[in-house]
């Protein structure tokens, strides 16, 4: 570097604390900036999963942070890193964001060690959500496998909030064994109500299990749906998609009424870093929610 260049070095600050700004403008200024959020509640769900509730500390950010079911946030623990995590709460739960986190690596290990009152960084929300408005007036068939319940719970709870806007709502939620079933209390409660047709199923039952037994596709055997009026939504481990989509297609649900949320490692969340690419699509901005027709047209999606 020449001496001229050193003198000409310019520093661009990305924040101007003196200016009163809206939360949206602050977030827009530098979308890589995580905003401090306090852990307000931690619920143990299983041996490996916890539900964290966060509250963004800056009121301006909090007021302009609006998510839709199916979107995700980037969570920061400074010094450890950042991870994309789908939002589990309904948008109607204003001011709070719930994330369901499985302890599975260095980042989530650290998050699981944190206590109520601890602070993390959040940025987002990112990604294309489920078409909630378009789904209104239709029957809904939701299929979750394992941790796939995390993004679908946002949709389920949002539907619950506006239950009268929807027709028949069927939820199929499959787990490997009873100890891995999350939000069981909530589901137990719903099992005895007429709002939802609920199928909890496990691969390996124990003596306490009184739900279904078998793969997540099993309940389809006796499922009666009106295909022209149904939206399907699914999320689960990679291996699950093909089989559930097959079942939905057998029931004649249209390609573009079957919505699925894909899991990839979105590092930037903004369609740049490339880690979440599926074929030519970026899971973070083109998805993570795709309909089956779109997914069929992306090489390597399923």
């Amino acid at each position, binding site marked *: *570097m*020449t001496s*001229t*260049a050193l003198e*000409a*070095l*310019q*520093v*661009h*600050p*990305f*924040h101007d604390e003196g200016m009163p700004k809206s939360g949206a403008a602050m977030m827009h*200024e*530098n*979308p*890589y*900036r*995580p905003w*401090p959020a306090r852990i307000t509640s931690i619920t143990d769900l299983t041996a490996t999963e916890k539900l964290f509730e966060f509250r963004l500390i800056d009121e301006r950010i909090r007021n302009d942070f609006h998510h839709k079911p199916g979107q995700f946030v980037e969570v*920061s*623990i*400074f*010094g*450890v*890193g*950042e*991870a994309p995590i789908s939002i589990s709460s309904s948008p109607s739960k204003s001011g709070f964001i719930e994330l369901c986190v*499985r302890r*599975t*690596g260095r*980042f*989530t290990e650290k998050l699981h060690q944190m206590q109520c009152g*601890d*602070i*993390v*960084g959040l940025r987002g929300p990112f990604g294309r959500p489920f078409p909630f408005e378009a789904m209104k007036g239709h029957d809904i068939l939701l299929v979750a496998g394992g941790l796939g319940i995390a993004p679908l719970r946002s949709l389920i709870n949002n539907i619950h909030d506006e239950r009268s806007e929807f027709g028949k709502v069927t939820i199929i939620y499959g787990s490997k064994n009873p100890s891995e079933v999350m939000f069981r209390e909530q589901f137990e409660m719903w099992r005895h109500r007429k709002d939802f047709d609920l199928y909890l199923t496990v691969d390996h039952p124990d003596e306490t299990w009184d739900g279904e037994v078998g793969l997540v596709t099993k309940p389809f055997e006796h499922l009666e749906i009106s295909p022209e009026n149904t939206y399907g939504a699914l999320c689960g*481990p*990679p291996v699950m998609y093909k089989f559930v989509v097959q079942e939905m297609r057998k029931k004649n649900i249209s390609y573009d009424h079957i919505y699925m949320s894909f*899991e*990839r*490692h979105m*590092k*930037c969340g*903004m*369609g*740049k*870093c*490339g*880690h979440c*690419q*599926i*074929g*030519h699509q970026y899971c973070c*901005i083109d998805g993570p929610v795709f309909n089956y027709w779109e997914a069929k047209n992306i*090489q*390597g999606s399923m």
Partner: protein
Amino acid sequence: MLYRVIDASELPALVSAFMKDYEVVAPVPSGQSYTFEAVDSFDSIALDYPTTITSLKKYLLPPVETLFTFDAKQNEVTDFSVEVVPRVLFGVHACDINALNSLDIVFKDARYPDPYYQARRDKTLIVGISCTPSETCFCHLFNADEARFGYDLFLHDIGDKYLVSIGSVEAANILEAACNVREATDEERIAFHNATRRHKESFNPDIPDVQDIAMLMDAFHEDPFWEELGGRCLSCTACSSVCPTCYCFDIRDTLDPDGDTGRRERVWDACTSPQFALVAGGHNFRDESAIRVQHRMYHKLNGFLANHDRMLCVGCGRCVQACKAHISPIEVLKFFDEKGRASGLVNDPESNSENREEVACD
């Protein structure tokens, strides 16, 4: 576009004028090849270079860049800024200008403009220069042999003079102050036209022009060719390091030795790296080199086209020279050239019209 003419002997004055307010980065000899480096005199610049080992992307997307610093104890961001050197990229070939135009699509004109890239881009002037294609150049196949926009000046060599396309007011002011700028004569326009024609005719004819490459790649997505090609990949990621349009990155936190403070950095990453598509829990969506190489080639020759109506590959040929396993877009073009003709999907100009009709009926 505004055209003017300057004598070749005036280039040193132009470079000196830029040096007053900018760092000037230009091609310089490096071993057997060339590289882009900051220069302090016109004499060190190699104007007639075939290509450089690495591209210019490092000046807009540094290999390692601090996004912000933080205090890990307080969980706070401490400093949020980007250091920018006002810079002139001097002597840039058309392929590389087209590459920067593609980076602009992703980092500047996208739904989420990247503030770091943008701050640098805003302080960067680009001076293009015409070139002589080397054996590994195939920019003309992807419409990247001409820069239609994305530069401040473009110097077209017409003998001992340059026809200069002027793309910005900022550069026009510097040019006019430093050089004796003339209107182009008809003779000079003809010289430019002839030089452009010669340029188009001087590409390596062994690299096939496969206009339907994106369609053919979709049609033969499952072809064993990909296994063979990608199976050779050493996952060294040299291809993406030298590529002017490979922009993928990783984001990581680096702690200072005290363990309390640190910085979040973005570092170059590559989709040909084995861990690239790994998710939490251990599932790797592209766990074989064959799939990774295929994914990379698709992004370059198919996917970006589908999204942005332009090839991401600009045919600069750097990866052709960098790859130890001889994997390159040229291999892909050659394979699909033959495949297209053998399968009848693409008309063979040598076959007769009767055959062609039969193919169309299939």
